[in-house]
């Protein structure tokens, strides 16, 4: 993975920068010794490692503003980091850059039930928000599998999803306001506790911007009332095609389940062995469908789904009889990644989205790729919204296997784009899919995205090397190509 070349001039001024940072945040909040820096060398995408030049751990917005202004003036690159659970290398440090850790921003500032929202600092974990409000019957809807560890700031940066986002939306649909520090040290507030923010939807632009546009220092999230009841049903199929067909028929039948997940045979076996969720082992594909709402409504919808499943040829159907069973059904799915980690020394998790109807074809072609590369594959799949998570099993200790896994992964993502899908559904581009952006976007598409970057961070110092294969100079992008005189008054219908 090629990262921006190290700036020797910046490295030479490392100690000066460290002293200036200590003056802002205090000595205890700056890390500069080699051993301690190593703790930050990678995020959830552990295949790539790079220790940062320095780490700073500010605890208030004013410190973040001073740090960014300082780094802007001294031409130092900055990589923001929450809990470091990114699966796309979004928080991969730079050897000549400052790693800005937001872990000390860990307080819930305001819980406002009357307006069904909470104001939290970015270092609060996703699950901690729900934990803080659940006694009043509320929760925060997006639930990425890493929710116990991942922070809300990181969720906003990556626009994280989860297993319930088909019905309740992803992060961008569930936040109301942000406080953001720009690379020039200016602090802007976007949105608030009201539904519609004024002006350009920069709240929407910040969400999913992968730490390239600004540093998030406060988030206002929407809280939802927990539904009266939730039930899940496990449906086994003898073939992936019929499982995919069932998913399409449920949605075409007008039902949007709270969650609809699919696992293939290797994933089912790995998860069952890990968790003992009670998954059937004699099926090729397993759906977990969850319905929530009022009691009779949920029962009725479960009946309808079971009828659709039977008509599609389901070989096993089991609905949760109580809350314990429902949670057990999910435990297997939610620990699919570590479960696969037990059956293989290493795994590489992909994240493309495809139009659902192309699923059988995509699964077939992935199986062919698996045979060709000699690497096993397990699939978990947010079936409702077409978000695939193929897990490529490999062994990093075997020479060449990581490279083969990366090549295999790139082929999968290219296939997703080829069938009308996208490179990433919820994990982000990061460094991982950066060089594949050209398969989905033209030069002009990427140039327009980078124009947004130029408006926020014209010198390109915030998280460079991520998302874009080539970072154009803003001066170059800003040039207006006027071909005056060449284009005559256009010959178009006028009246």
């Amino acid at each position: 993975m090629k990262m921006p070349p190290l700036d020797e001039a910046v490295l030479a001024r490392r100690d000066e920068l460290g002293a200036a940072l200590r003056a802002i945040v205090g000595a205890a909040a700056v890390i500069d010794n080699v051993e301690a820096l190593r703790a930050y060398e990678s995020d959830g995408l552990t295949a790539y490692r790079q220790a940062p030049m320095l780490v700073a751990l500010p605890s208030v917005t004013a410190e973040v503003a001073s740090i960014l202004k300082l780094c802007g003036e001294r031409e130092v690159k900055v990589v923001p980091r929450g809990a470091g659970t990114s699966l796309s290398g979004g928080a991969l440090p730079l050897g000549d850059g400052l790693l800005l850790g937001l872990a000390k921003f860990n307080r819930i500032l305001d819980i406002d039930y009357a307006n069904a929202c909470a104001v939290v600092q970015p270092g609060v974990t996703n699950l901690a928000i729900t934990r803080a409000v659940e006694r009043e019957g509320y929760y925060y809807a997006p639930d990425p599998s890493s929710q116990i560890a991942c922070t809300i700031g990181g969720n906003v940066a990556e626009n994280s999803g989860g297993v319930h986002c088909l019905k309740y939306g992803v992060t961008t649909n569930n936040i109301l306001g942000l406080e953001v520090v720009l690379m020039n040290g200016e602090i802007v507030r976007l949105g608030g506790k009201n539904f519609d923010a004024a002006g350009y939807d920069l709240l929407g632009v910040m969400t999913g911007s992968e730490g390239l546009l600004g540093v998030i220092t406060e988030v206002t999230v929407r809280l939802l009332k927990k539904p009266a009841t939730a039930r899940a049903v496990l449906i086994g199929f003898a073939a992936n095609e019929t499982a995919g067909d069932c998913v399409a028929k449920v949605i075409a039948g007008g039902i949007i389940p709270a969650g609809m997940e699919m696992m293939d045979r290797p994933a089912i076996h790995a998860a069952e062995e890990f968790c003992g969720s009670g998954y059937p082992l004699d099926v090729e594909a397993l759906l977990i469908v969850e319905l929530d709402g009022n009691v009779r409504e949920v029962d009725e919808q479960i009946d309808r789904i079971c009828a659709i499943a039977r008509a599609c040829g389901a070989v096993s159907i089991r609905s949760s009889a109580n809350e314990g069973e429902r949670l057990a059904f999910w435990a297997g799915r939610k620990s699919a990644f570590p479960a696969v980690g037990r059956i293989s020394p290493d795994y590489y998790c992909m994240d493309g989205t495809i139009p659902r109807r192309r699923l059988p074809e995509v699964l077939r072609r992935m199986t062919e790729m698996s045979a060709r590369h000699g690497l096993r594959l397990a699939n978990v799949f947010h079936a409702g919204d077409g978000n695939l998570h193929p897990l490529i099993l490999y062994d990093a200790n075997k020479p060449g296997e990581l490279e083969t896994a990366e090549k295999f992964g790139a082929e999968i993502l290219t296939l997703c784009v080829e069938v009308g899908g996208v490179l990433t559904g919820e994990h982000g581009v990061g460094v991982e899919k950066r060089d594949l952006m050209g398969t989905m976007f033209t030069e002009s598409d990427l140039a327009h995205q980078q124009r947004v970057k130029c408006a926020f961070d014209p010198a390109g110092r915030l998280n460079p090397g991520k998302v874009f294969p080539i970072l154009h100079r803003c001066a170059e992008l800003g040039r207006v190509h006027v071909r005056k005189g060449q284009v005559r008054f256009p010959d178009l219908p006028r009246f």
Partner: protein
Amino acid sequence: MEPVFRPASEAELCAVMTWALGESVPLELVGHGTKRGYGRPLRTERLLDMSGFSGITLYEPAELVLEAKAGTPLAEIERAVAAEGQMLAFEPADWGPLYGVMPGQATLGGVVACNLSGPRRTTAGAARDHVLGFSAVSGLGESFKAGGRVVKNVTGYDLSKLLTGSHGTLAALTTVTIKVLPAPAETRTLALLGLDDRAALGFFGAVARAGVDGSGLAHLPLAAALRISLDEVAREGTAVTAIRLEGTSTAVEERMAELHRLAAAKGTVAILDRDRSLAFWTSLRDVGPFVADHGTNALWRVSVPPASGAAVVAALAAGRSIEHFFDWGGGLVWISTPLADDGGVAAVRTAAASVGGHATLVRAPADLRAAIPVFEPEAPALAALTRRVKESFDPRSILNPGRMYPGV
């Protein structure tokens, strides 16, 4: 009448833009022109009519995805999705009648450019939550796209959000891909008569805490209630507080029983069946109570934290003659003010800002819209960022210049 460009292909549109860029000629973007009275008045000499980009180009009900050219009439799209039992869940408003235009003329591009939504905003989101991708030509005369044709996607910056609600100041949309959802099988509304503002908004809070999932929460004080035709209001002569329930018939029945129990303790209750419910919410969606005030009043759209809605109105109403109603459980306040004192701009903005909200002057004579900020003024750092974003996409200011803010 100003000269009109009406391109019918992306190549023609790029040619128009390139010419306008070269000559620094600003353009006013229109679809069917239903909302030309929205925003700061433009001083453009030429219209860029996008209605030539029309037609649904892709609709896959089981994938929940529809793509159409930006000038496609919204009515055509709504007919197509209704035929498959689906809907645009954000319930796009038709503001044409507010500006004296016949209803049913709005285009997809116009609704997206203005980020319009309806009463279902609180549970389903606004247009911005349903735009999955687009193609457009920017003020640099270059065509580009963003997003995709699938419902879950985080590849690259979410430019769909940036373009939605940008009022045609960044790019001319040519194609828009949106998410569609199943339409509810049943819809009914409970109307509670006789509550004042504070009690009504308090009731919405109690309903939410009880877990009754209303997909429309509106309160019309008597003056506004009398402006829509509702037999119960005419008969009782009282304000009306309305809560809409949608879903399967079982779900609606179950929730209605609970809602009825909560409401019966507060006052007289009436139930609007499907047809009356649809008519009521469509009227509210399109700001029906204030359509008739054209030319005599200023119409404000005030977005506030829902629980603060009543306090904002109370602060404004002291010593002033205003009319108002609430949507979004109190989070959206429509306020009609006299034109005197610049439409009450100072008082409206102070009241909105005091609770962290903002106000937009949706309808007023052009001279008033030129004299005062139509959209909430931004703090200096944010205003500078907004300007940089505008310059990044439209460096020569040829697209609806000044529609949102001076120079933007």
